[in-house]
């Protein structure tokens, strides 16, 4: 068994060998993408519910695609087109879902801890597709997969995460996963967005961007949520870009082989300059492709898929 629990709620709750096991399976799925027939009918007759209580485009599409490539039956259930509204407790929703006898639940919810709560009350597997500012484990896994494709073993590698760490579930999942695999993680961003208390998670907090990226092997540049407190937590896009934006100038100071991740969607010329976003250092489309593979791997493993049955061929 690669995964020890029935759910994937965060990278905090996965051990290093589980993470590596999932990535191994993901790389085999990734190899299938280049074949003319990309579907693997492993999940035929099984039902996966995508429950998105918060708007999401990329993550939802990536999950759907992963499920379709595994031939699962899919039900999409989102806040906008359901009776779910503020005031109904998550328990009510969970009991409704349980009554429908589903095999797997993919959940995106604005409340931290909500995926964990659903996993406790439901018998089916739950995959956290982002719970508030807490964790986004599939994003963390796809980021790590992308890094490992270029760097191999991450032990001793330096990864700098830049942006609104306080509100970022991507940051937390990256921190848990990367530190477990032995990477050295630095957090950087405006002091209003990077709580110093996070150093207790075994990372370095550095408020000066130049120092934070000087010897980095990887930059993971987070999306700034402009709707969230521009004017109060930071003065505005211009100042943000000047102090923490990844510009051509910053890129010139990087190690020659260093590369840049971004979870998308990008605010061009805010957290990342347009020319960097289109430049040779970014690996954003690899992230997107790896995202589907990672999600396929998790769904496959959680539904009891045998890692050996996939054939040991291509290692991505």
């Amino acid at each position, binding site marked *: 068994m690669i995964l020890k629990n029935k759910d994937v709620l965060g990278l905090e709750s996965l051990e290093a060998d589980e993470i590596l096991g999932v990535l191994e399976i993901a790389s085999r799925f990734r190899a299938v993408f280049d074949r003319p027939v990309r579907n693997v009918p492993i999940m035929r007759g099984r039902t996966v519910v995508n429950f998105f209580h918060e708007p999401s485009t990329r993550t939802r599409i990536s999950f759907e695609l992963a499920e379709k490539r595994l031939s699962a039956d899919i039900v999409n259930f989102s806040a906008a087109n359901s009776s779910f509204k*503020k005031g109904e*407790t*998550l*328990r009510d929703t969970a009991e409704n879902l349980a009554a429908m006898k589903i095999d797997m639940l993919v959940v995106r*919810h*604005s*409340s*931290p*801890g*909500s995926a*964990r*709560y659903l996993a406790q009350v439901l018998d089916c597997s739950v995959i956290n597709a982002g*719970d*508030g*500012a*807490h*964790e986004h484990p599939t994003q963390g896994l796809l980021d790590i997969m992308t890094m490992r494709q270029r760097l191999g073993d991450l032990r001793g590698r330096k990864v700098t995460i830049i942006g609104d760490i*306080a*509100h970022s*579930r991507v940051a*937390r999942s990256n921190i848990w996963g990367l530190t477990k695999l032995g990477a050295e993680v630095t957090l950087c961003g405006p002091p209003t967005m990077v*709580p110093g*208390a*996070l150093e*207790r*998670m075994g990372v370095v907090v550095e408020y000066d961007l130049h120092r934070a990226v000087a010897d980095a092997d990887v930059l993971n540049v987070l999306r700034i949520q402009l709707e969230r407190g521009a004017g109060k937590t930071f003065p505005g896009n211009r100042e943000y870009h000047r102090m923490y934006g990844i510009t051509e100038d910053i890129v010139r100071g990087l190690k020659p082989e260093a590369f840049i991740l971004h979870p998308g969607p990008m605010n061009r010329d805010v957290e990342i300059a347009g020319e960097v976003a289109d430049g040779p250092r970014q690996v954003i489309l690899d992230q997107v492709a790896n995202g589907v593979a990672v999600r396929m791997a998790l769904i496959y493993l959680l539904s009891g898929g045998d890692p050996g049955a996939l054939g040991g061929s291509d290692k991505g």
Partner: protein
Amino acid sequence: MQWSWKRIPAEYLVANVKLYQGGKIARRKGFMHVKKGRIEQVGAGEAGREGLPVLDGRGLVCAPGLIDMHVHFREPGQEEKETIATGSLAAACGGFTSVVTMPNTEPAIDHSGMVRYVVDRGKEAGLCRVFPTGAISKGRRGEQLCEYGEMVSAGAVGFTDDGSPVTDGNLMANALKFARVLDVPIISHAEDLSIIGGGVMHAGYWSARLGLPGMARASEDSATFRDIELARATGGHLHIAHVSTRGAVDIIRRAKQDGVRVTAEATPHHFSLDHARCRDYSPLFKMNPPLREPEDVEAVAAGLADGVIDCIATDHAPHTATQKEYQFDQAPFGVIGLETAFAVGVTYLVKSGVMDLGRLLELMTERPAGVLGLPYGRLEEGAVADFTLLDPDFTWTVRADSFRSRSRNSSYLGETLTGKAGATFLRGRLTWRDEEVLADDPAPRRGA
């Protein structure tokens, strides 16, 4: 005459008890003679009176009925959470004979008619003395003063907008001026909402790790400081509710040294639990002020031990199971406390060596009575016979069905605590008896 729990006589002796008096538990066994709801005689040894029914205290501690100066009984308006009757029963069960209710009901207790309503409902329940506080401002909106004089005449023992701070400093100063004339405290819910900014737990490592918005200590500290300066300027009696930070303890200590008329209370959860308890996102650890850092917990406990904080108050805040089933960030603030307060005190303050049992009981009887100027909280001749028989060694596990409160939102569910009330008496009449602690079986359970 034989003692019978079924029919409490008008005159009786409580014998074979360790008496609490003046912050100490007597080493020698003593007795108390109760007659027509008053204490006729109290002392060491044997009563030397024949013919009276004798309640054998079996070596339990006989203490004045506990006094909780901060409870939310939710009536009127949120009777699904608690009523004055169910809250009174929960109080009796916890060893309490007097409680002070907060005015943040729906509607708020902001005029004398509402004050009288709470007093009357308390008397109807008849299980403990219910002393209402009134709101500082009409509708708790922080705009217009209430009619304090008339409300005091109707039975209000203090004023507070608890649940929310009084943002308008001038209004707070004016309330303190009236309070000075009327000789009642203004109770401060010390919080600066402009600093909090939508937080749901203490701002620190755990809030950062869990991805939950934090409530900075500076919010409580600065609001405590402001209200103390207003008390200094006006001479009014300021009482700081639910102190939770080391900073606030220090600010209160300095103000007391300066002679400012300030008193303070702390809750059992703030002297026993820290913010790491939120790690599983259980809303049973969501309250305002929030559970803070271990050093704050220590400072609050030390403040209680050395007297900077005057008393223990529960901030008993019932919520239905449904409301506590919302996710942590959506759930309401507050936990119940009446039925666990004594046990949490014994477990976290006495057993850990912060203070002795006598001091703990002082903080739950004489001291809150003193803050409010109430003639209760002492076992002395002529006093009203409000008392409780406590077993400080009784070990029990807190379960949802342990509670007499209408709500079960306790932070201590599943925890094993030490200390329980065996029986509680109001004006000499039994209001609660725990048959596990004080069984019918007359055989002595404990050594002499």
